[in-house]
C-alpha cells in the first residue's frame, strides 16, 4: 500500500511537526469528546452495573446468576432458548442465506441483464422507503382479514383457525416465518449497492482478457469477481455478524406483543424501556446490562474469528 508522502519532508522542522499535531488534535477533538461521552462512558458503565443490584451493597454476580437460572428453569427456560434460537435464525437468514444471494444478484445486474437499471432501482426500493414503512405495509398485508389471507383463501390454501384468528404475525406458529420472509424480501437493497459499487471498480480490461481466454459466466464470478471484491464482502459479513444479538427493531416493528418471535436484542430493549418506569431508575438497568455483557462475550470472538477467517481466504487486494 502506497502511503501519501508529505511534501514537507524536505524542510520538515519540529515547528512544522508541532503545527501539524495541533491541526490533527483540533480535527479530532469533537469526535473524541463525543466518543468519550456517548461510547466509552455508557459501555464502561454497562460493564460495572452488570455487577450491581439495587438491594445489595457492592459487587455481586446476582444478575448473571439470575440469567443462567432463568435459562435453566423449566418455566422461563424454553422461552429464553427460543429467543436465542430466533437471534441465530435471523443471523443465518441475513448472513448465510441472504448475503450470497444478494452477491449473486449484484453480479447478474453487473452483467447488464435486460432492464438492469430498472431492477437496480426496484430492488433498492425497500431501502428507499425504509424498514418502518416496509414493515408496516407488510403488517397491513398480513392483518387478520387482510389481503394475504384473502389471497390464500382464493387459492384454497388452508389456514388453521388459530392463525386466522390472531393474524400471521401474531400466531405463534407462523410469526417467525413471517419475520424471516420479511428479512429476505427487503434484504437486497443496501448490500446490492455496496457489491455493485465494488464490482464497478474492477478494471474492465480484466474481464476483456478473461473473455478472450474463454472464461465462462460462473467461472468469471467465482475466479475473478469474488476474489477481487472480497474485502467488501468481508466488510459486509462482519457488519452483519456484529448485529446478530442487537437486532431489536425488527421485532419492535413487526410483532412486539408476540413472544414467539422475540430475540435477544428485543429482550434487552424491553427490559431497558420498562426499567425507566420503576422508581430507582439507574439500578434496574443492571439486569439488561448483564444480559448484554453475556452476549457481547459470545459475539466478540465470533466476529473477530469470522473476520480473521475471511482475511485468510484472500489477502486484501489493491488495484
Amino acid at each position, binding site marked *: 500500500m502506497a*502511503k501519501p508522502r508529505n511534501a514537507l519532508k524536505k524542510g520538515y522542522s519540529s515547528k512544522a511537526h508541532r503545527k501539524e499535531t495541533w491541526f490533527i488534535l483540533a480535527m479530532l477533538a469533537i469526535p473524541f469528546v463525543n466518543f468519550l461521552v456517548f461510547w466509552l462512558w*455508557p459501555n464502561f458503565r454497562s460493564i460495572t452495573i452488570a455487577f450491581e443490584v439495587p438491594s445489595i451493597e457492592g459487587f455481586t454476580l446476582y444478575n448473571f446468576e439470575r440469567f443462567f437460572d432463568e435459562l435453566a428453569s423449566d418455566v422461563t427456560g424454553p422461552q429464553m432458548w427460543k429467543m436465542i434460537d430466533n437471534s441465530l435464525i435471523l443471523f443465518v437468514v441475513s448472513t448465510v442465506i441472504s448475503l450470497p444471494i444478494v452477491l449473486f444478484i449484484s453480479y*447478474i445486474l453487473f452483467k447488464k441483464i435486460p432492464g438492469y437499471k430498472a431492477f437496480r432501482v426496484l430492488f433498492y426500493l425497500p431501502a428507499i422507503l425504509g424498514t418502518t414503512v416496509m414493515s408496516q405495509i407488510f403488517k397491513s398485508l398480513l392483518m387478520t382479514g387482510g389481503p394475504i389471507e384473502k389471497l390464500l383463501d382464493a387459492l384454497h390454501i388452508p389456514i388453521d383457525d388459530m392463525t386466522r384468528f390472531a393474524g400471521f404475525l401474531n400466531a405463534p406458529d407462523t410469526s417467525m416465518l413471517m419475520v424471516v420472509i420479511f428479512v429476505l424480501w427487503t434484504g437486497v437493497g443496501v448490500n446490492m449497492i455496496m457489491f455493485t459499487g465494488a464490482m464497478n471498480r474492477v478494471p474492465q480490461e480484466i474481464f476483456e482478457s478473461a473473455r478472450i481466454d474463454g472464461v465462462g*459466466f460462473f467461472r468469471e464470478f467465482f475466479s475473478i469477481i469474488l476474489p477481487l471484491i472480497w474485502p467488501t464482502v468481508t466488510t459486509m459479513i462482519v457488519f452483519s455478524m456484529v448485529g446478530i444479538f442487537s437486532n431489536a427493531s425488527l421485532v*419492535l416493528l413487526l410483532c412486539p406483543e408476540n413472544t414467539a418471535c422475540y430475540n435477544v436484542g428485543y429482550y434487552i430493549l424491553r427490559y431497558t424501556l420498562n426499567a425507566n418506569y420503576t422508581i430507582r431508575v439507574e439500578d434496574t438497568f443492571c439486569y439488561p446490562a448483564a444480559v448484554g455483557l453475556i452476549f457481547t462475550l459470545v459475539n466478540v470472538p465470533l466476529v473477530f474469528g469470522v473476520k480473521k477467517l475471511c482475511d485468510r481466504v484472500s489477502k486484501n487486494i489493491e488495484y
Partner: protein
Amino acid sequence: MSLRSKPSGVNLRTRTEKIILYSFFVVFLAYALTLIMPMIWTAYNSLKDARSYNEDAFKFPAFSEMEWSNYVNIFDEQSMTVSIPFAIFNTVWRSVGTVSLGIFFSACTSYVVCKYADHHRWLNWVYAFVVTIMIIPVLGATATSYNLIHNELQMANKPWLIWTSWCSGIGFGFLMQYSGWKSLSWSYAEAAFMDGASHFQVFWRIMLPMIKPIMSALFVVNFISAWGEYMDTVMYMDEWPSLGYMIYALQNQARFFGMPLYFAVIVVSMIPTLAIFVAFQETIMKNMTTGGLKG
C-alpha cells in the same frame, strides 16, 4: 459497454450465458413485482374511504370515487390524534442534522487519519482503533446509553442538546471517506502548502471539495435511512416524534380512523425519499463502496 468497439465484431455473449441471463430476468421480474405490487396497493387504497377498503381491499377505486380528501384529512390533528406536520418538521431537522454532522465529522477524522499518518504514527493506531470499535458488538450499552441520555445528561426530548450525540465521526462514513481520501493525490495539498496555505485551508478549500461526490452519495444514502428512523424516538425523543415513529405508532390506531388515512400517511412519507433517490441515483451508484476493514 466497451465490448462493442472490439475489432473482431463478434458478439462475446455466448448462448448459454444468454439463457442464464434470461432465466434470471424472469426471476428478477417476479421479485420486483412482489416489491412494487404492495406499493401500488398501498397507494390506491389510500384513496378509498374506510368502508370500501373493508369491503374489498383489492378493488381499484373508480376515479369518481377516489377520496382525495384523505390527503387533506391526515393533516387534521383532531381526526388523527397526532400532528403530521409536526412529525414532518421533526423528521426534516433530525435527518438533515444527524446526517450532515455525521458526514462532516467523519470527513475530519478520516482525513487526518489518512493523510497525516506518515508523520504521526499514532494515527495508524487511531485507525485500527476506530475500525475495531466499529465491529465490537455493544449490547449492554443499550441500557446505559438510555440512562445517560435520560438521567445523567438530561438530554432526552431536548433538540438543542441531542445533536451533540451526532458528532461521532466514525462508522460507515468514516470507511467510505477514508477510501476516498486514499485515492486522492497529496500533491494538490503540497502545491497549496508551497503557497503558504494553512492545514485547515488545504483541508477545507482544496481537499474537501474533491471528495464531494462521495460525500453527496453518503448524504443521500444516510438521509434516506435517517428519514424512516423511529428507534431514537422510542428511546429519547418521544415528544419530538418522527414520521417513521408516527407510522409505527399509528398502525395500532388505524382501525379507529380507517386504514386508507393510514396509507395516505405512508404515501406522504415515501414521497421525499423517492424523489431524492430518483434525482441522485447516478451519484449513489457510482460512489458507494467501502473496500476492506484493515486494522
